């Protein structure tokens, strides 16, 4: 067999797969009564096209099955409908065709025999139909134009897209290095920096397009679901329908691969444990037909996929216990409890929500469950939009760079003292002890230098403090695998290569390492008694910039308050009893930094309050405008380092 033969086979299999998905969807539509002649036509076209390719390669079983389906459709088109009893048989014939196309032998004969037997049973009808069918043969050309209405697509090997994304990621890094080099060479090469700016835009565009290549709509995996729900319900003498919405929601293809089984599992649960028998439903005043919904939509930087049923819900006592366990999802996942009293064959005994939770967490997502006893259950999978690109907060520890997904970052605090929570080191935040996550590198958890920044990570309802030596900042990075050798290692989503070529390990917020239990007393003399050099209000609309400055200042001993824009800052200034200095960004919504300075200078009480403008606008005009409106200092973000900012603030608060 030559490689090109195998390639053709692959292509035919892939095309047949698409056709069969449509055939199945149309058959289900016909069964539910929603479909009409256009569904029959669509099945006819698809069956015809599978038949054509299978015959070309010499797959006899596939050809025969496709032909049998096509024949029934031709009759159906003449008759204007397909007998309801035939649909189940046709669904199985379509399944068999799928298996035959993928090389399984001996599939066709029993199915063909059943189809013939069905014809014989419904003899009169079909004999009549078949003569009409022959008469209708000249209609053939209709079936020969199957592809006209589909939009043109190319099939590309997914690995090629990944390589392309890698290359684009590299190009972006290279571009950043070039920018650094140009900056270091000094000003004056205006044309070069303009070209670089243009390159920035083009690269971002390119990166977006490639990332989109990796995303696919949820609908690519949903087509078997209605059938699965129908079959499951039938097996248990229940009545259930599945309604899908938001199937156009885009997800990373790796995530799609990973969640298909999970969704099927949740649908099984909904049918087996959620939906009651038709009689029970009637007694409860519900319609006999149970309703299961699969909904997908974007929620913030994540995609939420919800599986909801209107069944019996989780037992009331479990719902009330949920508060103690953290959440209903945690409770159901840890105890392996199911909502039905007896575990039936179908629910895959022993494999409960814990498996669902683990598989979602492995993709960097989370699980939520809501339930109302007697009314139904809703399980939500929260998944990242893409695994390829991620906004992360970068920090240093033990001389290495690490990253945390921004979606999990709560805030950054300065830690001056560690306490102990159940013998494990912890930090106290707003009166609550938050356990310290320990990387096992560098200084021990009890030896944290005073006023170190800690990132508070919120994941699945729990908080953890990740200690840092220094924050680097927020960045969008390409996430790469740590390699197959480390694939089984928990704790990491992957690694990112930074602009300077260093590797930053991206921590998995759901699997942060616990600090080891320590026998020794961790309590050290508190450092907070040190005199605070003053109170600073930090104003920035960007979370990471705000938290970065907050941590720098808190580490230096200042008390810090924050505001998101000029308007909020003015309100805070009015409320605060103690305030020594304001550090503000320039570009902000509502009221920008220049307007804020003007407003402060126009206020009788606060007109002498020192204000430092921190901005990425490095040009002379902005600097001049800053001085004109009355700012005391102007720090450009490019040259923004801790020392410069702290010196400036110290100088201004000392007076």
């Amino acid at each position, binding site marked *: 067999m030559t490689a090109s033969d195998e390639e053709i086979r692959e292509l035919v299999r892939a095309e047949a797969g698409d056709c069969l998905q449509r055939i199945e969807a149309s058959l289900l539509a016909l069964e539910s009564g929603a479909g009409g002649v256009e569904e029959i036509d669509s099945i006819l076209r698809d069956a015809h096209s599978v038949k054509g390719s299978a015959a070309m390669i010499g797959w006899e079983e596939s050809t025969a099955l496709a032909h049998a389906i096509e024949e029934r459709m031709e009759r159906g088109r003449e008759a204007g409908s397909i007998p309801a009893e035939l649909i189940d048989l046709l669904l199985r014939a379509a399944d068999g065709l799928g298996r035959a196309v993928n090389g399984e032998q001996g599939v066709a004969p029993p199915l063909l025999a059943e189809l013939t037997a069905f014809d014989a049973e419904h003899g009169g009808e079909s004999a009549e139909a078949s003569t009409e069918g022959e008469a209708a043969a000249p209609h053939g050309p209709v079936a020969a134009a199957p592809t006209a209405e589909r939009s043109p697509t190319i099939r590309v090997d997914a690995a090629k897209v990944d390589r392309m994304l890698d290359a684009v990621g590299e190009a972006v890094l290279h571009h950043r290095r070039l920018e650094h080099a140009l900056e270091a060479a000094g000003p004056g090469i205006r044309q070069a920096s303009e070209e670089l700016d243009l390159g920035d835009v083009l690269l971002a565009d390119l990166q977006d397009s490639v990332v989109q290549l990796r995303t696919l709509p949820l609908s690519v995996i949903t087509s078997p679901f209605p059938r699965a729900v129908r079959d499951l319900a039938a097996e248990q003498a229940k009545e259930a329908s599945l309604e899908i919405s938001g199937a156009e929601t885009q997800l990373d293809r790796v995530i799609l691969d990973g969640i298909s089984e999970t969704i099927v599992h949740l649908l099984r649960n909904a049918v087996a444990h959620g939906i009651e028998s038709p009689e029970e439903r009637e007694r409860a005043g519900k319609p006999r037909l149970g309703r299961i919904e699969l909904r997908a939509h974007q929620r913030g930087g994540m995609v939420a996929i919800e599986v909801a049923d209107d069944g019996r819900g989780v037992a009331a006592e479990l719902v009330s216990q949920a508060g103690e366990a953290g959440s209903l999802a945690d409770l159901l996942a840890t105890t392996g409890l199911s909502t039905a009293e007896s575990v039936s064959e179908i629910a895959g005994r022993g494999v409960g929500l814990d498996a669902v939770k683990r598989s979602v967490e492995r993709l960097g997502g989370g699980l939520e469950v809501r339930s109302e006893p007697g009314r139904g259950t809703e399980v939500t999978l929260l998944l990242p939009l893409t695994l390829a690109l991620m906004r992360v907060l970068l920090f240093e520890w033990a001389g290495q760079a690490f990253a945390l997904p921004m979606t999990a970052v709560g805030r950054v605090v300065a830690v001056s003292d560690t306490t102990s929570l159940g013998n494990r080191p912890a930090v106290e935040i707003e009166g609550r002890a938050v356990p310290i996550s320990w990387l*096992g*590198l560098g200084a021990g958890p009890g030896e944290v230098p005073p006023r170190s920044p800690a990132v508070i990570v919120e994941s699945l309802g729990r908080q953890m403090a990740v200690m840092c030596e220094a924050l680097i900042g927020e960045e969008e990075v390409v996430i790469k695998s740590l390699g197959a050798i480390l694939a*089984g290692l928990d704790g990491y989503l992957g690694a990112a290569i930074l602009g300077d070529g260093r590797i930053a390990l991206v921590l998995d917020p759901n699997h942060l390492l616990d600090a080891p239990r320590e026998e020794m007393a961790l309590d050290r003399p508190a450092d907070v008694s040190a005199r605070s050099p003053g109170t600073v209000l930090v104003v920035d609309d960007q979370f990471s910039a705000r938290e970065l400055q907050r941590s720098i200042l808190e580490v230096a001993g200042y008390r810090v308050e924050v505001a998101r824009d000029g308007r909020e800052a003015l309100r805070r200034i009015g409320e605060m009893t103690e305030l020594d200095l304001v550090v503000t960004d320039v570009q902000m919504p509502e009221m920008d930094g220049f307007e804020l300075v003007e407003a402060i200078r126009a206020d009788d009480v606060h007109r002498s309050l020192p204000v430092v403008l921190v901005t990425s606008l490095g040009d002379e005009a902005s600097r001049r405008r800053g001085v004109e409106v009355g700012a005391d200092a102007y720090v450009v973000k490019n040259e923004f380092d801790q020392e410069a900012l702290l010196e400036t603030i110290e100088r201004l608060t000392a007076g």
Partner: protein
Amino acid sequence: MSDVHVHVRVAGEHYALPVERVLEVAELDTIAAVPGAPPEILGVRNLRGQVLPVVALAAVLGLPGGDPTRVVVVESGELHAGLRVDEVLDVEELPPRSEAVESNLLSGACMVDGELVGVLDVDAVLSSIAVR
């Protein structure tokens, strides 16, 4: 399959790697430690934009000491790693395996210029350290 091997020195001993399994030889570079990984995995490094796990070959073989200067990048199926070695001596055809070996990480051993050379089974080495 040819019998050409990459001949390396690791902690004072001589080993050979089948050339079909060797992708390249790289300089030592900064390695980012990966907390939680097995001790013989030193960490990961950036190799032209790819993330490559680096393995202390001496530790895998149970040899103390050594003076690593190079990384031999090897593959076995989808497993890739850089094996840290002291020195790459030669790329050469090996004589017949004349010596008996006991380690399951070696496929055989032979004498080259009076030195005992262990022939590494790269598949066994990589699968022995992979985190499953």
